[in-house]
């Protein structure tokens, strides 16, 4: 047993309406990779934010290398070498990679006047990114990078400081397989150098692969700490949710119905190249591909969020013109976006507001909205999706990440659309909740809804889809029936050079 780097004792945090942490204990040894595991809303992020001084605890104590931490602020934590990467990206979109990496700790030519040494910083940035095997230009603007690359920049930023304790709150939810590999390599490298790491993820295979020990939280309470080598994935699930989950992918097969959506030769310069696809009532069409392959662009173009350059869309056999998401909604087709914070939610508004925002007309009674029915429906959604929220009037920004995701799902369920497109529907949600999402998908197909699901998680694609499309560089490179597909086949199709050449 190593030296204890961090000890948190009986840490309690109360938010209006929730006891987010209830006398939590945590012990992290120097140089280990310690995993925090728990359902959505279990309190993982809150615990982290207390550790980094972002929140002040309502009780309990923190010891670093045996010394009690009396006052704590983000600056103090940083100075102590405690470097967090939060669940939500914290980059400045308008600035470039170098500037973001050195934000707040710039290298200066003339200290007194704060004159920057761009050259040094760019070189150092390049070194850091090279270490991460990332081919990102130090002068690229963050807003021009995809989410995955942005996450790698965040990691680079953390690595640019003298770090004693690195905290990674769900870093992999936005990363592709290769990037995860790089991250893990880097984590191991840091560990060799004696850096302590706290790692949060909902992906149990990752936890098994990288973690040394794991602490499980449930509903704000401490459950257990175990050596990862000693436990199985199933054990972990049981600890987390307090029961067994028998089937991770509870697929229900439904009879294939009529064609609901047909996309013909859809193109959008540079990102979507002549894509055709069909979705049927009662069936799930999975869309696989590498991060950045253009899947998001494809589905955005289908529902009219981005302008298409050419191509036709048929809904229930009728050719339709879709120029705006509202048109898609009118034809009963909706998209659950992958970026919930920026594209899915009204963070300052209540759960009820969000759940009803896409379909207010449903509640129109003469002129006014029927508040009672809105509340009923929202309560119904909270219950059926098991959203953890103190009330229907809680602001969404106060919910944990996973519960926020459920709110977005709730919003779309409430529209009673019959073509559902999910873009990364299980990003950042716990195993239990994942199963619930799959059940929602099952229920939808059962109702005769056509489902399209974009996902970067192959097991999910394989487990839930009836038919699978693989996209590479904006082009369809393979199509499989679920039965004939394997991880290997999909991966090889995903890495085919799609060769987008219709950009001209």
């Amino acid at each position, binding site marked *: 047993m190593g030296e204890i780097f961090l000890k948190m004792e009986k840490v309690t945090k109360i938010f209006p309406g929730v006891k987010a942490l209830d006398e939590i204990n945590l012990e992290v040894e120097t140089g280990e990779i310690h995993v925090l595991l728990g359902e959505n809303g279990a309190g993982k992020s809150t615990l982290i934010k207390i550790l980094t001084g972002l929140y002040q605890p309502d009780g309990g104590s923190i010891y670093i290398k045996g010394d009690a931490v009396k006052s704590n602020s983000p600056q103090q934590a940083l100075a102590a070498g405690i470097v967090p990467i939060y669940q939500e990206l914290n980059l400045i979109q308008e600035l470039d990679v170098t500037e973001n990496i050195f934000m707040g700790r710039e290298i200066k030519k003339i200290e007194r006047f704060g004159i920057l040494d761009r050259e040094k910083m760019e070189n150092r940035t390049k070194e850091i990114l090279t270490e991460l095997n990332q081919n990102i230009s130090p002068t690229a603007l963050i807003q021009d990078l995809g989410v995955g690359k942005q996450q790698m920049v965040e990691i680079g930023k953390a690595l640019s400081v003298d770090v004693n304790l690195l905290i990674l709150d769900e870093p992999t939810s936005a990363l592709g397989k290769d990037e995860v590999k790089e991250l893990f390599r880097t984590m191991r490298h840091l560990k060799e150098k004696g850096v302590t790491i706290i790692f949060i993820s909902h992906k149990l295979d990752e936890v098994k692969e990288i973690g040394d020990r794991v602490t499980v939280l449930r509903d704000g309470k401490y459950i257990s700490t175990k050596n990862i080598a000693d436990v199985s994935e199933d054990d972990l699930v049981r600890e987390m949710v307090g029961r067994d989950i028998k089937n991770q992918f509870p697929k229900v097969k439904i009879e294939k119905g009529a064609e609901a959506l047909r996309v013909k030769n859809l193109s959008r310069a540079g990102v979507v190249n002549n894509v055709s696809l069909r979705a049927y009532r009662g069936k799930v069409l999975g869309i696989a591909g590498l991060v950045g392959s253009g899947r998001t662009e494809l589905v955005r173009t289908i529902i009219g969020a981005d302008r298409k350059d050419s191509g036709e869309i048929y809904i229930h056999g009728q050719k339709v013109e879709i120029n705006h998401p509202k048109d898609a909604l009118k034809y009963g087709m909706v998209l659950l976006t992958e970026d919930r914070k920026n594209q899915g939610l009204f963070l300052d508004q209540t759960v009820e507001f969000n759940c009803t925002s896409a379909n*207010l007309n449903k509640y129109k009674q003469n002129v006014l909205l029927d508040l009672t029915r809105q509340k009923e429906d929202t309560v119904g959604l909270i219950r059926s999706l098991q959203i953890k929220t103190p009330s229907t009037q809680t602001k969404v920004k106060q919910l944990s990440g996973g519960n926020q995701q459920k709110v977005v799902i709730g919003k779309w369920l409430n529209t009673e659309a019959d073509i559902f497109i999910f873009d990364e529907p299980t990003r950042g949600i716990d195993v239990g909740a994942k199963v619930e999402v799959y059940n929602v998908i099952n229920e939808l197909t059962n109702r005769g809804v056509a489902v399209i699901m974009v996902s970067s998680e192959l097991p999910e694609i394989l487990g839930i889809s009836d038919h699978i499309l693989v996209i590479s560089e904006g082009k369809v490179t393979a199509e499989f029936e679920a039965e004939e597909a394997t991880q290997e086949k999909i991966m090889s199709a995903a890495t085919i050079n799609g060769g987008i050449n219709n950009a001209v």
Partner: protein
Amino acid sequence: MQSKEAVGINISGGTTNWRKLLFDKLGSLLGLIVLMIILTFASPYFLTVNNLTNVLQQASINALVASGMLLAILTAGIDLSVGSVLALSISVSGIVIINFGLNPVLGILACLFVGGTAGMTNGLLLTKLRLPHPFIATLGMMNVARGLALIITGASPVSGFPDWIQFIGSGYIGPIPFSFILVIVAVIIFHYFLNRTTLGRHIYAVGGNIEAARLSGIDTDRVLTWVYTISGFMAAMGGIVLMGKVNAAYPLAGLSYELDAIAAVIIGGASFLGGVGTIWGTLIGAMIIAVIRNGLNLLGVSPDLQTVVIGAVIIGAVYIDVLRRQKK
């Protein structure tokens, strides 16, 4: 299907709502109350029926104009043109009624129509030309409308309106100024509009996250166009009260009203970032501004010093609200 538990959530949700609403209002209310207590001690004339009804009347125009401004600010925008649009609306109205002898009722409708149209133009400039921020469209309109008002009136006032129009601006029903009754009606309508109609809720959605709103199938351009149309319409409403109050329409009416209106909205707790704000807060914001001005007049403070005090009180009123929130 509905279990006891669900009902539980339901009810508790409702209660929170009312309590919250009250709290939100209380924010600026507290500032208003503090101000009124100070003035009651400072001037023997302040807490008299006559004076308080004056204050209500004096707050009316700004309250109406600020209601429209609230919508713009709720969508993270701004409407700089309210003062000019007010002037243009009443100028047109004055000319058609007095010079062309149009039926005054139609003249008043013309006023509202002009206000709405100018506002809609703001909205269309913003959404169709894709101007980067309503600041530009409404700054342009601020100049254009003022210029048009000057041109059509030949820069001179038009006066001599029928009694009932004067009544709108300066009449009383019992001790209550008619203009303030108008305000109350407007506020109630706005309250229902913002909380209980699709468009109202969409306004909050657009202000909260315009991208999410668009992806939720909300026609954000339509919402924005409505917002500025209503803002122009409410400016014209304010104009009618003004026209009635002074029995004249003149092209320089409403100068710098945009600042008062914005101040009312922000003192009333709305956020420039959009998505946050209530009509009740705005009403109280307008009251606070009127009370400050009135109090300083009663105390006979010199205009130079008044300017200083108004500045300080605006900051103070908002600071009280900040403190209250921190306590919470």
